[in-house]
């Protein structure tokens, strides 16, 4: 009798808890739990046939179908290359200004943040295939037409690196075509620098600061004057997501937490 009453009281509690979950996966698991408790209730009310069916369908099959259904829509899939300070993998965890912004944004949307590392040159292609929702990792140039660029969250500039021996005048810059010339993984860039394999390259400020920790005395460094900014890029047909993200960055800037993030990750 008491167990019946406990289970019956538990049912609305579980239903309420799962109803107010922001994260979709938690809500689905709450529903599965509800079905399980409901099955136990049926069993205690001498309806084992109904209990078996409820457990099999409600707790197992329907939960799985929901999990499959939200598998892609329940997560904010971000693709980007590593950039120290913005988006970097340290001890198995992602840290950086962009990671902080994205984590807060995903929490607000009730989604799970999932970051995949990809070479800088592949980010736009992956987004164009809609294999990810957002692109990140120090993106400072204008994307192709179908992609949507968010509001800038951090100002930057491009830096041109040439060997010291090259004494041609500072190259002419054109704001539309100049972009970070490196398209591989950031770790390969650092290695290439250490082995002196690069001939001439253009890098954005965050990447330049990271490689400048190695010896760059044999390089000529010219800072291109056009101001730029780091921003996120949203996949085609995700304009709404881009607008939400821009509004979120606005909000962060207004209440000063964006400055805190920048001070914490970029000393």
């Amino acid at each position, binding site marked *: 009798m008491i167990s019946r009453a406990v289970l019956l009281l538990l049912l609305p509690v579980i239903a309420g808890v799962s109803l107010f979950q922001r994260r979709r996966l938690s809500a689905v698991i709450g529903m599965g739990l509800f079905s399980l408790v409901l099955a136990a209730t049926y069993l205690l009310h001498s309806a084992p046939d109904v209990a078996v069916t409820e457990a099999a*369908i409600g707790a197992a099959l329907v939960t799985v179908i929901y999990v499959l259904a939200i598998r892609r829509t329940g997560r904010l899939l971000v693709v980007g290359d590593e950039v120290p300070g913005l988006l970097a993998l340290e001890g198995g965890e992602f840290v950086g200004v962009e990671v902080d912004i994205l984590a807060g944004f995903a929490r607000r949307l009730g989604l799970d943040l999932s970051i995949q590392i990809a070479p800088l040159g592949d980010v736009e292609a992956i987004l164009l295939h809609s294999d990810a929702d957002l692109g990140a990792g120090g993106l400072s140039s204008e994307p192709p037409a179908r992609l949507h660029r968010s509001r800038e969250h951090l100002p930057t500039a491009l830096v041109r690196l040439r060997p010291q021996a090259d004494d041609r005048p500072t190259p002419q810059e054109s704001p539309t075509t100049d972009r970070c010339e490196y398209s591989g993984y950031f770790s390969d860039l650092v290695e290439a620098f250490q082995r002196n394999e690069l001939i001439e390259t253009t890098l954005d400020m965050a990447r330049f600061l990271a490689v400048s920790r190695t010896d760059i005395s044999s390089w000529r460094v010219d800072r291109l004057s056009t101001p730029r900014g780091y921003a996120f890029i949203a996949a085609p047909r995700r304009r709404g997501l881009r607008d939400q993200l821009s509004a979120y960055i606005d909000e962060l800037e207004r209440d000063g937490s964006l400055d805190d993030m920048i001070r914490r990750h970029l000393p």
Partner: protein
Amino acid sequence: MKRIVRTALAIALSLAACGIVIFNLPISEGATHQNDMTRLATETGAPNLVSAIYLGARLYDTLFEVLVFTVAVIGVRFYLLRRPSTARATPIPESHVLQASAQILYPLTLILGLYLALFGHLSPGGGFSGGVVAASGLLLCVMSIGAETIYRRLSGAGIERLEWALPMVIVAVCVLPVVFTRPILSNSLPVGQAGHVFGSPSILLLNILIGLKVLIGSWMVLYAFILYRGEI
């Protein structure tokens, strides 16, 4: 030509369904009192009264439940097949813990499903729940082996045609008693010793058919979700 035959068959089946409803063909008697319920158990040879009712006295209702399930499967496939497939997208890998435990659990779950379907007339269970439990087992199998492998093996057995054929077979089994000059929807096979596995062969047969139908239908729904909403 094929199209015309199909359309004619569909119209004939719908008319037959309407006919059953409108002319209210004699249906085997329902149980209303305690005595009737005991009588029902002995009549059908199924100690589990729930089975005796939904596959004996109220088989008419169960037929439409099967129909509802079939329509649900058709609906899922109809709407998901029109969406672009996500199967080529970057796969989201399963964790190793999940894969290893799925490998241990799937034979047990499949056997439990089989048990529920085969012994549905003796103990709690039946075709519907047995089929769903077996489908969960198949899902665990997918987690440990991979959806494509399972799909290829099952398609080899012509599973999709079976899905559409099974409702017809179930209806045929229900109409079969007419051949033996007995009321439609009554026991089609002779009742044996109550409490024995083969004590009520017609309920056993219906449980197996419904179990198979539910298993294949659930698998097709799951596969459509795996293919179009996110892969395992």
